[in-house]
């Protein structure tokens, strides 16, 4: 049978594999590695307790911001500016774009991250200055930050344009979808690696949010009848899930030693 392997065959393969002997590494190259790691030790404070993971994460994020993702920020800016222009004639319910756009920058960032990963990532990764995991986590941090900034500015602009809107509801209408949908997207993307996962999530959210905001009964309920406490509860639950998802990602990366190549980056910067 093709799908079966006998004990004898296994032993035979094992014997064959034993022939694959790797030449002993050169002492010179081992010494080079030792010297390199020693240099890193001298230039890095990673083995001292005062160097936190978050400060390093922020440093990598700053590099990512400097070298890549300009198109992403530009697209976010254009989308929000275009929607604000559309809102000027007062014919659209102001809550509608708030709900629809709530998680969009974060989901778009997820798409951008996985698309660029499949495309071979940017120069930073090619140079081995940072590893994929570091870049991805840094981009996620940046995306969450961008999402909050874009929506906050957007909310302030809407509050300026529409005097009748409820500030708390404007805030909660983008905050709850952002927290909830971002968490779900992050979970799905972590499980199903590949750019199609965030694409599908973005597609589902677009269809769902357009359906919800297009349904007058649902919108009436959300805007006039639903209690704010309900949204706050949704926000708190979503926040807990988001913190849990991010913690899982960070802890997994820490265990794998993925997040700490930053020390190597420090070393490269130093030389």
């Amino acid at each position, binding site marked *: 049978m093709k799908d079966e392997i006998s004990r004898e065959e296994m032993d035979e393969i094992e014997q064959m594999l034993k022939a694959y002997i790797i030449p*002993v590494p050169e002492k010179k*190259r081992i010494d080079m590695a*030792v010297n390199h790691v020693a240099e890193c030790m001298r230039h890095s404070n990673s083995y001292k307790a005062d160097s936190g993971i978050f400060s390093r994460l922020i440093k990598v994020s700053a590099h990512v911001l400097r070298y890549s993702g300009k198109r992403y920020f530009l697209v976010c800016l254009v989308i929000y500016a275009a929607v604000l222009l559309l809102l000027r004639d007062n014919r659209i319910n102001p809550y509608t774009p708030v709900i629809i756009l709530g998680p969009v920058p974060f989901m778009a960032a997820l798409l951008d991250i996985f698309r660029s990963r499949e495309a071979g*990532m940017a120069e930073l990764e090619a140079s081995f200055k940072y*590893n994929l995991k570091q870049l991805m986590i840094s981009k996620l941090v940046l995306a969450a930050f961008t999402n909050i900034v874009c929506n906050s500015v957007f909310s302030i602009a809407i509050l300026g344009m529409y005097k009748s809107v409820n500030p708390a509801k404007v805030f909660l209408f983008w905050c709850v979808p952002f927290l909830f949908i971002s968490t779900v997207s992050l979970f799905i993307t972590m499980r199903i690696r590949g750019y199609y996962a965030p694409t599908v999530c973005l597609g589902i959210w677009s269809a769902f949010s357009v359906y919800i905001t297009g349904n007058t009964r649902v919108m009436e309920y959300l805007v006039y009848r639903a209690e704010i406490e309900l949204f706050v509860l949704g926000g708190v639950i979503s926040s807990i899930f988001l913190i849990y998802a991010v913690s899982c990602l960070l802890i997994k990366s820490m265990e794998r030693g993925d997040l700490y190549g930053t020390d190597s980056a420090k070393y490269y910067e130093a030389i």
Partner: protein
Amino acid sequence: MLSDEKLVGEIKNGNEAAMEILVNRHYNTVFTYICRRIGDYHKAYDLTQDVFVRMLGGLGNVKLQEGKFANWLLKIAVNICRDYYRSSTFRQMSNSCEFDEDAGLDINVISLLERKEDIQSIKHALSLLSEEQGEAVILKYFHDRKYAEIAVITDSNESTVKSRVRQGLLKLKEILLKEDNDEGRNFQGRNG
């Protein structure tokens, strides 16, 4: 002899000598894993160095179990190899077909056909396994790791690892034993 854990404690205090001992102790394990995994002797040196740099950074936060330091290093090596296969460096190399096959591992087509134990044929067969199968088979048969240990190293579960090893062996059987039979037939043909 100082245990790995004690050396790690020393490194955390900035002791370079402890680091040197630890790197020397585990260099061969990491290097041979990477070399078999990526099949490039020279690149393996660079990636091995990268493993120890990452190790240095991770020491501050990782909680190591007694006697499990080598497995943690292999876990870093597994991830470094995965990153390497996904990197644009590798894609550029594979596109331009500039794999380094030297350093005592020269491709010799004649010997590949005539010698069943040839390193190149095993290397070739291993390269045809999927990423997960390759990792599992190398850790199982070259590094003598238990299924449970491989599961921890490769971030999967024990039954998945067993399945990957089995699938990997089936594929190797198909490739290596087929080559073996072909050689036998060729030999009979030449002499018959």
